[in-house]
């Protein structure tokens, strides 16, 4: 158990407050989604069995783009 660690995973299905989240490599777990309003397909950060945040895909891309620009590199096209 890692108390400030959180792992990203993809929400597969939702049943009330509980969802099934896919962490890749065939690892799926039940996760409590009560603290976020996630829908299937969203990526959530999961900490100790609870989703604490929906990850923002747009921002993940933007940060990379911003830095590619700073570094005058064209990456990930």
């Amino acid at each position: 158990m890692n108390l400030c660690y959180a792992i990203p995973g993809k929400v597969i299905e939702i049943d009330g407050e509980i969802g099934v989240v896919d962490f890749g490599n065939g690892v799926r777990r039940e996760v409590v989604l009560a603290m976020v309003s996630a829908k299937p397909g969203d990526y959530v950060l999961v900490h100790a069995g609870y989703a604490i945040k929906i990850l923002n895909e747009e921002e993940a891309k933007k940060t990379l783009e911003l830095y590619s620009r700073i570094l005058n590199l064209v990456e990930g096209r």
Partner: protein
Amino acid sequence: MDQDLKQILRHYRNPRLARNILEKIHEIAKDLQVVRIMHVCGTHEWTITHWGIRTLLPENIDVRAGPGCPVCITPASDIDSAIKLALDGVNVLTYGDMSRAKGSRMISLEDCGARGGKVGIVYSFMDAVKLARSNPNQEYVFLGAGFETTAPIVAYSVLKGLPENLKIISSHRYVPPAVGLLAESEDLAIDAFINPGHASTISGMKAYKPYFDEVRKPMVFAGFEPLDVLLAIYMILRQIRDRSPKMENEYRRAVTWDGNVDAQKNLREVFDFDDGYWRGVAIVPKSAMNFKEKFSKVDARKIYGLASGKGDHFPSNARCAEVIKGLIDPPECPLYMKRCTPATPIGPTMVGVEGTCRIWAQHKIVGVKCRSGVCKIDSESSPRTKGMLKEG
């Protein structure tokens, strides 16, 4: 066009980007004095150590691990209290590494389990609730440690209603005031902070604003991939070069200014934020999440008359307090990798999976070289350094 997030995140380990950012970092650092950067999250320490980031940085850039390991800062007396309950026949539940941290008499919950104490390990607070529910005739106490990442889970469950037979010792701590305290410390003389990524998804950047206003030192919120950390360091150096300290967000895919407002509301509804002890560090104002009066019926401290958490209690010679504060590096402790190893941990920072000693030990870091007041890992002993980032 629509790349899956997993694919995008892969770029955060891109060696070419990493090398380029490192070049920029070296360029800026040439014109700077010694810069001391502190992070306060065990997962940042893991990223930095695992990818050998310290060995790739310029000589004058010193990245220090602050108190970012919940198990390490949980007061010895709270561990003692839990042990006493377990020996008195109460079922004590906690997280795995928490159960291995030793209290003031150098006994852990795990040790006390071996002596007949009733101790159980849970992965999540949800498991504790389930256990209590399926065994209504048993008495359960959950030792809850962790920061604002973990505490909302407990707050949420308390608001929803716990089974009657489950009580909680809340040792939860709130990070922003601790960063404020560290930023003011003259002993540490920290120039800038890498703020915790996951804890800040809850608190939001705004929670750090009063402390930033006080000290006006760069604070960058960073994610946990190697590129995230390098970008954060780059942002910090740029701010220092331009003499314009800011709160900046590198981890925009997860951290926002406002944070998780619902989680904050739950926290404020359930807990008072009192002055509280951080083991090895100090009393940190308004950082201890204690149950409000109206939740007394779940508060194990009130029900069993347990003292509020305090006390360092490290064995003599052990330099845990200095490691936890980020004053020294683990190899400077005489017990490191001698009497104190991951298999035979003495202090809590060798126990907690986010403890600095534990992380350095797992990466077999044995030496540091010190020059002009900055200590660097001996590069030969950091196996990962020669991996991805250098050769790509």
